[in-house]
């Protein structure tokens, strides 16, 4: 038992809150992310995560939790993408790329200022690679509330999202406003990406967002099943990551543990590979 679960895994308060927060965020990321994949907006999701680094680093400079920075900047960036991006996918990608570049430049400045003036050297790590083990309990209600907002948007617009993913013209012909769906969805995406950035970091947030859904879409052919399987894979990858990260405090080189984000991302990628192999076997019959 101890070989798998290092001593104290089940009694450690930090591990408890990491397991809970990690699971909540994994579920939100998977459910919102399923439609990110179907709507082919992975790049937008990635850009929102990286731009979030700007807000996260600014929030740390200002002395508040990076989550508020992530959220604030991601919502602004989502609005900018929506307003700049008209309807052609190419100009949409271009708008996204431009917003991304500007945001990362600011992030570099804020992180530099933080590191030089306030000696918050840990800030770069926290912002870019997450802080699942140091999410304070005070943040839990906010994380849960934001999760509910993002999930509510996806569940309320569920059929609109399916219909627009299937074919935008079909949805428009049924009187569904493509503009409204797109704006609401980007809001949910901004929230999901920010939560993901808070736990596994701005740079890696996309992995949790699109990895589990991409795996789930290889395994199921029903929309509700895809959401459930994606959420399951996300939670499993997160929990396994936390388990190994906790174990890693006894590992070389320093005995100070490996980053939890690393393990989560590796597990997500492994699940995707397994699903891909399984899916290929299925299509071969």
């Amino acid at each position, binding site marked *: 038992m101890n070989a798998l679960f290092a001593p104290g895994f089940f009694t450690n308060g930090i591990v408890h809150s990491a397991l809970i927060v990690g699971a909540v965020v994994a579920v939100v990321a998977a459910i919102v992310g399923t439609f990110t994949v179907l709507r082919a907006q992975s790049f937008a999701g990635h850009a929102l995560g990286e731009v979030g680094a700007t807000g996260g680093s600014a929030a740390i400079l200002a002395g508040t939790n990076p989550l508020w920075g992530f959220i604030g900047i991601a919502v602004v960036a989502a609005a900018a993408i929506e307003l700049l991006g008209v309807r052609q996918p190419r100009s949409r990608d271009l708008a996204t790329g431009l917003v991304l570049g500007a945001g990362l430049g600011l992030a570099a400045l804020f992180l530099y200022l933080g590191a030089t003036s306030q000696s918050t050297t840990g800030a770069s790590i926290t912002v870019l690679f997450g802080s699942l083990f140091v999410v304070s309990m005070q943040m839990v209600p906010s994380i849960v509330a934001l999760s509910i907002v993002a999930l509510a948007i996806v569940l309320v617009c569920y059929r609109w999202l399916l219909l627009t*993913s*299937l074919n935008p013209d*079909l949805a428009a012909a049924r*009187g*569904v406003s493509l503009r409204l769906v797109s704006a609401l969805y980007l809001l949910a995406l901004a929230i999901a990406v920010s939560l993901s950035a808070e736990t596994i970091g701005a740079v890696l947030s996309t992995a949790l967002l699109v990895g589990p859904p991409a795996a789930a*879409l290889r395994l199921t052919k*029903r929309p509700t099943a895809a959401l459930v399987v994606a959420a399951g894979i996300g939670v499993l990858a997160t929990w396994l990551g936390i388990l190994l990260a906790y174990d890693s405090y006894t590992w070389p080189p320093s005995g100070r543990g490996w980053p939890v984000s690393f393990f989560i991302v590796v597990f997500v990628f492994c699940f995707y590979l397994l699903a891909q192999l399984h899916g290929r076997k299925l299509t071969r019959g």
Partner: protein
Amino acid sequence: MSAHVLEEQETPVLWLHNVSADLAGRRVLDDVTFAVQPGEFTALIGTNGAGKTTLLRVILGLQPTSSGIVELAGERRGRRSVGYVPQKVLLDPDMPLRARDVVALGMDGHRLGIPLSPRAGRLRRDRVEAALASVDAIDFADARVGTLSGGEQQRVLIAHALIGEPELLLLDEPLANLDLRSQHEVVALLARVAEERRVAVVMSAHDMNPLLPVMHRIVYLAGGRAVSGTTDEVVRSEVLSALYGHHVDVLRVHGRILVVAGGEDEPVRPDGEEPGSVESGIVSVP
């Protein structure tokens, strides 16, 4: 063919009166007028760029008109009852939707929330099952829709459009990219729908020949202008020559109709509008 006589006394399901529309400053539809009666099969014929897709989008309300009136009988009674099958839908093979899910979205895809109530769920399943049966799609009802053949996807999309029990079914080039056998199946299916359910079918195509046995009315589009009537009224040399603005011949060969551009000395329209593909003298092969 026209055993089904045009019932002029009935209220038309769809009525376009002097409709014009512009796209990016270019006139795409120019003073188009025609009406469609319940249960009538109407073919919208024209080459690429003749304005077929724009005309369908105008009817759906997705494209604003510059002038003219579009009247839908259902809309007048406060009920939106138009089914639509868009052009060249290439469904993503990764889309986690079975054929039956796509059909169900035709019933309630515009609603909010997730369908959960078990009783409504049973009714929903029965209706979806019936819609799938009506297009002979039961065999692949549980297959991922993106993995189906073009003809099968087309049938699923027709069921999607029909499950809301529309009075009018619009289809944009449903025969494009289909092999001859699937074309024949889709046309037979649409004719049956028009006949049995009294649904007015309006479908666009660049070739009228597969539709000749089933269509009651033709709307022939060229350069944004249209003439409509029965095939015999419209597909005649003098009518189409006037529409194209230069001489065309209508040839009937082995039950097929070919529309062929006239000789070299014939005047081309002053605005330089190409009357379809003029290579080898054939203006489309409708």
